[in-house]
């Protein structure tokens, strides 16, 4: 902007003097010529004003540019801070990673104990409700079928009640055993087990046909009494305590 204004002012003045110099001014009327000294002074004044404005503008611009260049100049303290932050970030990520590792390995070592305690808890409940451990730990060979049968009923009375209380058990296959059934090629391998002649290559879209030998069981919920957190002690776990009558 500034350059355009200055240049055009200079150009105007130069053209004017040039015109005078080549004598083109002679074609101008007397009136114009008589006012020439006045016009000459006006042009000089305009020129001076332009130069003044130009000077002021260039001064301003120089200051602005100086300020700008000062801001652009890299600050050493800030950079140091940034570097410090970045190094901390890296260290933190590393520490987090190590923490995760430590926790995982700790859990891996602790988990079996909780799981084992829960398993013993189930055994303990089945013993309490249905004498399962008594039944299995006794020597079955030395008793008659009638005695074994009577004992089996004890198990069934107690354990079936407990089982129904703790789990919601129903058959996986809702039809009857011996029924023919068809499985799609991509069946749920956890819910079905194929036995007999199971061929390797089955055409895309083909299905498996077979007879249901066992209907399977599933539980839709687990409602086991939970161990209080502080009760996961070390082995030996007590399945049933010694009973002493006072």
């Amino acid at each position, binding site marked *: 902007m500034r350059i355009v204004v200055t240049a055009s002012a200079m150009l105007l003045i130069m053209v004017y003097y040039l015109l005078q110099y080549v004598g083109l001014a002679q074609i101008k009327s007397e009136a114009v010529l008589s006012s020439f000294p006045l016009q000459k002074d006006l042009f000089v004044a305009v020129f001076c004003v332009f130069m003044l404005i130009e000077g002021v503008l260039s001064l301003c611009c120089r200051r602005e540019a100086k300020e700008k260049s000062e801001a652009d100049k890299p600050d050493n303290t800030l950079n140091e801070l940034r570097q410090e932050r970045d190094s901390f970030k890296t260290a933190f990520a590393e520490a987090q990673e190590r923490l995760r590792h430590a926790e995982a390995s700790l859990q891996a070592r602790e988990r079996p104990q909780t799981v084992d305690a829960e398993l013993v808890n189930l055994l303990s409940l089945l013993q309490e409700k249905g004498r399962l451990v008594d039944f299995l730990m*006794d020597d079955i060979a030395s008793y008659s079928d009638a005695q074994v049968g009577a004992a089996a009923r*004890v198990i069934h009375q107690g354990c079936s009640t407990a089982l129904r209380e703790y789990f919601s058990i129903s058959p996986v296959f809702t039809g009857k055993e011996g029924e023919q059934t068809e499985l799609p090629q991509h069946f749920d391998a956890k819910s079905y087990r194929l036995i007999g002649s199971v061929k390797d290559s089955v055409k895309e879209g083909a299905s498996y046909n077979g007879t249901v030998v066992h209907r399977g069981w599933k539980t839709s919920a687990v*409602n086991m009494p939970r161990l209080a957190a502080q009760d996961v002690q070390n082995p030996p776990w007590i399945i049933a305590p010694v009973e002493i009558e006072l």
Partner: protein
Amino acid sequence: MGNSFCIGLDLGTSNSAAAVSFAGEDEIRTVPISQTAGPGLLGEKSQLASACYLPAAHEEALLASSLPWVPAGEQRDCLVGAFAREHGALVPDRLITSAKSWLCNAHVDRRAAILPWKSEAALHKFSPVDVSSMILAHLRDNLHFHREKWGGDDLLKEGQVVLTVPASFDEVARNLTYEAAEKAGWEHVTLLEEPQAAFYAWIAAAGSEWRSQVQPGDIILVCDVGGGTTDFSLIAVSEEDGELRLHRISVGDHILLGGDNMDLALAFAVKNRLQASGQTVGKWQFLSLVQLVRGAKERLFSECALSEVPISIAGRGGSLFRDTISAAITREEAEQVILEGFFPRCSVLDKPQERRAAALQEFGLPYAADAAITKHLARFLTESFKNVKSDSTLASELGLLALENEDTILCPTAVLFNGGVFKAAVMRERILGLLHDWSGSPEVRELEGTDLDLAVARGACYYAKLRAGGKGLRIKAGTARSYYVGLETSMPAVPGYQPPVKGLCVVAQGTEEGSVSALYESEFGLVTGQAAEFRFFSSNTRAGDVLGAVVENAATELDEMAGLEVSIPAAEMRPGEIVPVRLEVRVTEVGTLELWLVHVNSDLRWKLDFNLRAAS
């Protein structure tokens, strides 16, 4: 969110339950109750066994840890729930059961630490009020612990809480139940009779359909046989301005007889049979026998094709094969013992056998002397007739004015069953059949569709919603009994003759909650600095008595309750001065009874307290 939660509490003799709902929603949800399931084990059940076990010194560390709301390191005085009952059966001197029945036992001080009854094992005992309070506190802690599930912190502070009591509970037992609830931290509790709660549960279950299942003129019997108690109520259906009206017109006596008695009776029968055949059933084996016959009974009564259920009773020792006794419970035996023993066919005129006075000397729980529930029912219906007949307004409402015969029964047209006992269809059929025979009417209907175990809690919750919402049909009930203060008759002394005590009616039957009545005609003179005692009576067969009515011979015509006592501190008056007072009776909003003596010439007033110390 004032009053946005509605909670129903069923404090049962053998099992307790809770139900919760929001004021704006229809669904009523029963609350799973976390409870100790074994040493260091926590489990959830839909009901809380109303049993308290007092752990021995060596057990405390073992039993303190399992409840999630008990902070680590803290211990509760006793253990509540199913495990408490199971484990307590093996250590019976440390087990408290049926605390609720003790609440209405007038022969003992119900605030005194007397339970476990006659036990020398427990150093620290508890009062019936304490035990009820501990059960209610467990329900409260459980609800608070699971509060996120129900959506808020202020559940217990802001909600409407309805607690059920047997219809047969007298005012003393009701007041004590309320006291136990307050002690357990429940605020703003309202009391509701259990049979009414069962009826509300039926309305809630039937939805808008219920109005088509009953008609004006119906009299509905609510027949509630719980684990330890039997409770009867009659609800009349009438029509007013095209709207159905429900009116609870009669309640029965408190009968300590229930499903647990039936299991015990059958277990004893099996034990005797086994012992007659030379097998011995030890005391520990008898415990498992009781559990086994319960299961066998339920199967026999629900599966018609079964003729017998074999059971095996294990010994306490480790060898199952060696120590197990086999037996079978046959259908005949179960029907003989339970159906004929507890629900025998009988005539309307049959009265249950009364306990002889001598039997009271032991002051245990006053178990019913006659196990025949049907005979208790016959007596209830006879007395209900008497009750309705004594009130001409009520009698004309029910169209009974013309009947003159004293021995007539007030026969229901429909029956709502409640309690686990009635899961067996044979019991329901027996009752319906008998009612049919007694009334001669073509049909006595059964109102179906409630959960027999949880109906009371659900119905209480429904009633809490009615109270919170302020609309919906409520059963017109009021006080179940009328109450009387004893007045000495002034007559010349005759040696060897006790002047009869008159009963002055201070609360008429059916007095609504929130009413205050002053007896202007009764003025007493009280001596300051001295304790004054009043004899207090009640009746559930005198609906006709109005406030101020006088019964000539209170001792024979009314049931005597715990006495009332008051003492005016000498500091308030000059000692020895005779202060003129009159009686003011309040039936509070929550459903408890308060009696006050008001100074005739000033604003001074003194509350009469029930004297719960043993009458002996």
